[in-house]
């Protein structure tokens, strides 16, 4: 296997999907420009033609609706939103239309579309260019959500998403674009709904999502030097998510830290933590910890950004909290502290 970057892996998946299946086309903003998609779509328009790689006017709602209609009419569209924030303008075709279609018509007809959106944080881009809104979509029945953290999954999950007969939201993160890793040359789908154990361990389970899965691996390396053995699970797929892999691991370690690149309240980390608390209650040695964004919009100034975005260090501190001797009283204190910041 060769080594590719995350962005190259996304591009390769597109190229192979477009070459294999005439029904696949890409529609959205910035497809002909390196500004919007980095190298993740580089020269696909030259290779496959501008009629299949369609750089659209600024019309998030209608282009996403077009993808729904094209999917219903037998195509396999990938609609592209280079910044997830702008995709908010396309909530109707996603939440009212694509997600409902199968259920509304008794499974007689589905919407085989992929919605690709990019999380584009940091770099002083501020509140409307930095949002990770994946948790919105966990709430909606009928739409799948995947978030790769490695080059291999960036390719494999895009293939699986296009092959799936249902609407799938594929969310990639610009902070991962230059990550490298070995990627199969063949078209090997990563199964949707299955997590990956990135590192085996026995003291604590760290469940990471997207960029935070990569940070969890770094955190585990730091913890190892302290003599703490962390098992790292990369969730990869948020809806459906792999409860079994998570619960089997937590049953083994008795401790869990959920690390999510999105906001804390009502977020993906809450869903995972609640499930662990319910299903693995008897196995837990400590309260489930969460590392997430504080409940504020993204700041712009670099100084504030540094305080805002959690990273491996926050995961390490959360793990240490799970290993602190536990009493009900200290738990109350800890939780009060945690409410104030990313991971107190």
């Amino acid at each position, binding site marked *: 296997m060769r080594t590719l970057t995350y962005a190259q892996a996304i591009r390769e998946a597109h190229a192979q999907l477009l070459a294999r299946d*005439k029904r696949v*086309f890409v*529609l959205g903003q910035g497809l002909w420009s390196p500004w919007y998609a980095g190298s993740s779509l580089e020269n696909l328009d030259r290779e496959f033609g501008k*009629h*299949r790689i*369609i750089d*659209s*006017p600024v*019309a998030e*709602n*209608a*282009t*996403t*609706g*077009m*993808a*729904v*209609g*094209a*999917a*219903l*009419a*037998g*195509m*396999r*569209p990938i609609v592209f939103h280079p910044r997830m924030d702008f995709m908010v303008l396309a909530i*109707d*075709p996603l939440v*009212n*239309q694509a997600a*409902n*279609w*199968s*259920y*509304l*018509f*008794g*499974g*007689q*007809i*589905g919407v*085989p579309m992929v919605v690709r959106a990019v999380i584009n944080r940091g770099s002083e881009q501020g509140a409307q260019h930095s949002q990770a809104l994946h948790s919105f979509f966990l709430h909606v*029945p*009928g739409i*799948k959500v995947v978030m790769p953290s490695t080059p291999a999954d960036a390719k494999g999950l895009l293939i699986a998403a*296009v*092959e*799936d*007969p*249902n609407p799938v939201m594929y969310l990639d993160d610009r902070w991962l674009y230059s990550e490298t890793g070995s990627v199969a040359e063949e078209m090997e789908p990563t199964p949707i709904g299955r997590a990956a154990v990135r590192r085996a361990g026995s003291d604590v389970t760290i469940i990471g999502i997207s960029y935070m899965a990569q940070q969890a691996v770094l955190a585990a390396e730091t913890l190892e030097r302290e003599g703490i053995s962390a098992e790292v699970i990369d969730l990869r797929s948020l809806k459906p998510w792999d409860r079994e892999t998570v619960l089997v691991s937590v049953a083994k370690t008795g401790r869990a830290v959920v690390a999510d690149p999105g906001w804390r309240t009502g977020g993906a980390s809450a869903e995972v933590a609640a499930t662990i608390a319910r299903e693995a209650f008897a196995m837990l040695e400590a309260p489930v910890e969460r590392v997430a964004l504080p409940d504020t919009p993204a700041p712009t100034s670099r100084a504030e950004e540094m305080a805002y975005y959690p990273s491996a260090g926050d995961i390490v501190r959360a793990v240490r909290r799970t290993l602190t001797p536990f009493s009900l009283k200290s738990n109350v204190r800890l939780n009060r502290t945690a409410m104030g910041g990313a991971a107190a």
Partner: protein
Amino acid sequence: MTRDWLFERWKTMVRIRGAEEAVARMVETGEARCPCHLYIGQEAIAAGVCAALTREDTVWGGHRSHGHYLAKGGSLGGMFAEILGKESGCSSGRGGSMHLLAREEGILGTVPIVAGTVPLAVGAAMAYKLRGEPQVAVAFFGDGTLEEGHVHESLNLAAIYKLPIIFVCENNLYSSHMHWSERRVADNLHEAGLFHSVPGERVDGNDVTEVFAAAQRAVEKARANGGPTLLECRTFRWRGHVGASFDLDVGVERRGELNEWLQKDPIARLEQELGAGHELKFAAIEIDREIEEALESARRSADPRPSRVLEHVFVNGAAA
């Protein structure tokens, strides 16, 4: 138009009206519980436009789509069963009146979110163009829909990609309870596409021949890679926005208008051309019987199993 052609359109329109009147009765008795938006008064538009289409062409509708569904070939029994929430309904009893499906007839799903299917129709037209197929897509919508922003995105996208689509605005003058003059300054919906380079035409929506002629021109142009057209079909809905009443009881002052439009009944106008005779009388009896049988069969069908409630959130099976 030949007499035979007119007679066929008349049958389509009488069938739609008869079905809608049956639905109205079911709404009044409480037998139909889901929200029903009746098409009575607008029948010439669905009948005229669909006469210009092939079975493979798709039509996209909204909350008031019983007429589109029937004119395009959807089954009466499937629609009645759907409205009654039966498992044998055209949408498996999951959609009700506002969500109709007739895949084989080119209805891939109607939805009540205003303008919800307009971009979907544009996407279907994109699919036909990418595949080099001759089909067209028709987006049916009401006058209120042109007040939604993404309809303008859709018009521009259809124009820039020169897609085979016809935007059919059924201007019945009211968006729910609001007259057009309460919502817009100018009465100019046929011009709605001009800024986006989508040519528009205003037609008498209660004249099935005129509707057909305009639709046929637009369809021929679309099939010849000539791009989209917008048709504004002027009409009036006789009943209220939703339900069976004539809407005179909810503070909407439209009694005068209704009386005026009752005189322009699209079916009566066609009958003047066809001439009353035994042929129409017999055909009407036949249509009534068909409606009655479809209704009885829908009533006899089973309710869905309650345990089905968790099924079909996703379609099953791997994509080919």
